[in-house]
């Protein structure tokens, strides 16, 4: 929580911006192509070099790697499940039952395995991904226990503890070597699919949700759908991989799918790191090949896995592969290409004069936002008590009041982050009182946050592009398009960055920006959704005077060029005085008064409320 001083003139004390990455190093970049190719070449030659046992170990490693890769998207979005191994088990049993008991051909059986795993994932994901926190984790955990128990205790279907044996190889596969290539190909396909998905808008949205769920929702990310998709896509691959596994091993029994399987998938993803799609594959290789190489068995091998996880999380929190890649990138210049580099072509040559993408529905002076009788209580506290006000297009409205007077709650109510107990909220005539945040932003209302202003782990350009793309007009068709090819979104993103003066920072991680620039970036994110109404929650808090002057300039430009109406919560009354056309003052959740800045700020009751409130 910000315990930032509210007083005027606080100097910017934030850390200096991280030095720009050294220019791309062609040599190093070449390795990012050659290294995987060399690895692939070695793997392709492996059957000529090694015996069946080594192939078997590698086949199992491929399975774990592919499972880890397909599990990762949820982890990226900040959700942990203990069910991926169970979905794999479901796939294995679907194939076992269909192929052995019903003679279904291999390919349809594999697809059925994937689809049934998807159904399972939706069954558990739909109710449990709604709520944030530990519930999804606990539901998946409980589901795994139940499924395992069902497998054990329905022998007529699953063979019970005796399992299902005699599962055939896929057609055309006659030996170990064939299977080695088959599973290698399957793992490569899974990796390829997730690398592509990772670069899409959907991939970026997942990273956004992992970094700051509220901010992501506020720019138009549909949290539930995005997470559910990640869960279901992962389940689809887990189910199919399970089917391949059943066919490979020929015999499945409950003991193969204990809870520890899900835990080891999680281990692979954590050890490798979730930042890059191939991180979990590195993790899988480490946790399977090292104990095998060292000939550790049983308890010792398990201890190795556990210690590896603890050490990774304590020393390299983002995973070994992530930290290593980023270290090489920082030390030797860009190893992997950034969005800014890939999207350089879509950067306007000269700062174009931005133009609004959508015409304003409401004419000048028309009512854009109408709030009437807004009411909200938390327990016994009446946080917002019958508040009504209006915002007209191109108007700048100040919202002031002491701490706890209900300003931020009002923002939360109109932007969909909290549901009002009573009252009406209309945006350009459409009721948005019961809509979710990602719907409201499509109506043209954007907001910024006091605290989680930016996606810290995304670059500046990614921050803004995520917002521009999420708000995009044809969201579904462009969902899987690589972001670097999403011209419309990138153009908006570049424009906004030029406007706020952050274009030169495009490839820096937002977390490394100085405080003032972070606040400006937060504003840019909201702007990138091309709003008609922008609600800013303490945009100037903690900024230096110089930064405030810059902010005011930017806000004026926005207003003039884009015809955007603004609602500003701010304690720095100078900002209110300078920018606002009208001011609404709140006290204890209720409307105190409304008028021009001069009227309101000089009103004795407002002064009294502020002094009585204890901070200025």
């Amino acid at each position: 929580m910000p315990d930032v001083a509210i007083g005027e003139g606080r100097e910017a004390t934030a850390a200096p911006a991280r030095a720009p990455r050294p220019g791309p190093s062609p040599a190093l970049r070449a390795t990012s192509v050659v290294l995987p190719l060399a690895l692939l070449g070695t793997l392709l030659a492996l059957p000529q070099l090694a015996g069946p046992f080594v192939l078997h170990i590698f086949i199992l490693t491929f399975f774990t790697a592919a499972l880890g890769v397909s599990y990762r998207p949820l982890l990226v979005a900040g959700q942990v499940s203990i069910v991926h191994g169970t979905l794999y088990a479901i796939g294995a049993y679907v194939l076992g039952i269909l192929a052995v008991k019903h003679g279904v051909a291999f390919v349809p059986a594999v697809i059925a395995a994937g689809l049934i795993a998807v159904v399972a994932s939706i069954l558990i994901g739909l109710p449990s991904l709604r709520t944030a926190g530990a519930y999804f984790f606990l539901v998946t955990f409980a589901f795994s226990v139940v499924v395992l128990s069902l497998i054990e205790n329905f022998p007529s279907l699953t063979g019970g503890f005796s399992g299902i044996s005699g599962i055939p190889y896929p057609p055309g596969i006659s030996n170990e070597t064939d299977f080695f290539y088959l599973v290698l190909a399957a793992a490569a396909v899974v990796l390829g699919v997730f690398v592509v998905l990772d670069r899409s808008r959907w991939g970026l949205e997942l990273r956004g949700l992992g970094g700051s769920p509220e901010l992501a929702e506020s720019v138009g990310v549909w949290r539930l759908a995005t997470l559910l998709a990640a869960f279901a896509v992962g389940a689809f691959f887990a189910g199919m991989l399970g089917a391949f596994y059943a066919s490979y091993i020929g015999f499945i029994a409950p003991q193969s799918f204990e809870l520890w399987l899900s835990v080891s998938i999680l281990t692979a993803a954590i050890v490798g790191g979730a930042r890059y799609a191939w991180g979990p594959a590195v993790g899988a290789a480490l946790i399977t090949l090292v104990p095998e190489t060292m000939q550790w068995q049983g308890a010792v091998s398990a201890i190795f896995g556990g210690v590896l996880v603890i050490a990774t999380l304590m020393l390299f929190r983002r995973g070994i592969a992530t930290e290593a890649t980023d270290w090489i990138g920082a030390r030797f210049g860009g190893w992997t290409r950034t969005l800014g580099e890939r999207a350089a072509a879509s950067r306007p040559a000269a700062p174009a004069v931005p133009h609004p993408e959508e015409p304003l529905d409401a004419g000048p002076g028309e009512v854009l936002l109408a709030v009437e009788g807004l009411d909200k209580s938390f327990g016994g506290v009446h946080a917002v008590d019958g508040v009504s006000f209006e915002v007209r297009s191109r108007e700048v409205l100040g919202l002031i009041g002491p701490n706890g007077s209900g300003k931020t709650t009002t923002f939360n109510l109109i932007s969909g982050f909290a549901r009002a107990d009573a009252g009406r909220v209309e945006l350009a005539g459409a009721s948005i009182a019961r809509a979710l945040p990602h719907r409201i932003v499509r109506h043209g209302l954007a907001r910024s946050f006091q605290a989680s202003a930016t996606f810290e782990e995304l670059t500046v350009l990614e921050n803004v592009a995520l917002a521009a793309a999420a708000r995009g007009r044809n969201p579904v068709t462009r969902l899987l398009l690589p972001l670097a090819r999403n011209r419309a979104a990138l153009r908006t993103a570049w424009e906004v960055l030029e406007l706020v003066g952050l274009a030169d920072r495009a490839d820096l991680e937002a977390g490394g920006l100085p405080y003032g620039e972070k606040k400006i970036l937060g504003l840019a994110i909201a702007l990138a959704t091309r709003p008609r109404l922008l609600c800013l929650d303490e945009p100037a808090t903690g900024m230096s005077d110089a930064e405030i002057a810059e902010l005011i300039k930017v806000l004026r430009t926005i207003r003039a060029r884009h015809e955007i109406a603004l609602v500003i919560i701010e304690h720095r009354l100078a900002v209110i005085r300078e920018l606002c056309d009208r001011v609404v003052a709140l006290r204890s959740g209720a409307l105190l008064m409304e008028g021009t800045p001069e009227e309101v700020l000089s009103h004795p009751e407002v002064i009294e409320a502020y002094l009585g409130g204890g901070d200025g």
Partner: protein
Amino acid sequence: MRKTAPRLVAIVSVFAAVITAALLAGCGSSSSSSGSSSTASGGEDGTIDYGLLTALSGSTASWGTAEKASDQIAIDEINKRGGVEVDGKKYKFALKTYDNGYDPTKTATVGRQAIEQDGIQFVENLGGGTVAAVQPIAERAGVLLFCSCSGSEFLGEDHPNTFRPYYDDAQSLASILQYFKQKNPSATHIAQIYTDDDVGHETIPLTEKPLEEAGLTSSVTYVPRDATELYPVLTKVLQDNPEAIDVGASPEGLYDGMVKQARELGFKGPFMFPDAFDFSSASKALPAGDLVGSLSAPCNLTAGSATGKKWAKAYEDMTGEEPQWWSAQSHDNVLLLAEAIEKAQSLEPDAVAEAMSEVSVEGATSGGGTVKYGGEEAFGLPRAFEVPYPVCEITPGGPGGRGVQKQVTKG
């Protein structure tokens, strides 16, 4: 990739190749050090590797420890007397253990490691639920497989190299039931509490016939193997007023709990122990008299023979723990294998397989008699242990009123 730097590319490729080679070398190291050492050439003495795939981790790790100890005892004994002689050459046995985690995937992995990588010709595997994972590998490679497989589908013509060095729980229950019915002609109903795992679920169907032959009905209940609070399950079981409780192949921790808690709940009848039952340790762990009236088969066999006593002593010396009785069968199997190799005068698994049924030893579990492979009528091939099934009854008396174990039938 506009400008490539060939030198760096070369370095990285070499680097990647070295890492992969190191991994391969690591995986392959066991083969280079120990592979196919059973075919020692020249006049030198050789080694016969005996591979044990068993649970050294997880909830069944204690079984693996016992099995490993018992195999080691047999191997030490064989080696002490100079090993086995084939064609004038002396071979010593060496035990190699692999952790199968009681998990089919791991079993397939270590099975391949033992058979394909390390070239082991004689492999023992623990776990009814894991046999199906290793059996195809062993049969394909023509390797002898000794398994704790209770289902009859694992033995016979289709799997000529698979052996079961364990006696049959259904047969031992049959002996117990016969004696019980003879003693209590009016008895009609017993309860069976079996473990909720592969062993329990696979054994229950096999006990239907002996129950029918004895003219008894039963109600079957499964309990998790690691269950400790048994009041709820016993409350259920005792509702039917069973005249005896058959605890199947429960591990000792579980059957001790069942006996104690069932007595607390007022059960007066006998318990039936058709699998490994250790009177000496159970009577120490339980309140005096709890076991009186209980029946077990095959009873008291390790204590009944010199080999058995020697085994038990060696087991305690080696592990510092109470012997797990059932594992003595693994010990006997290794002794039989050594005999069979000498008999066949060959290390070829097929020849040894033939000879397995032609030899017998005075094992730790034969109660003074001999252990050998039989079961031709049941499986088509002599592939399962044939032992007598004498029944023991625990009669009142003994030190502290703990009861005395007495053999009551010849078996």
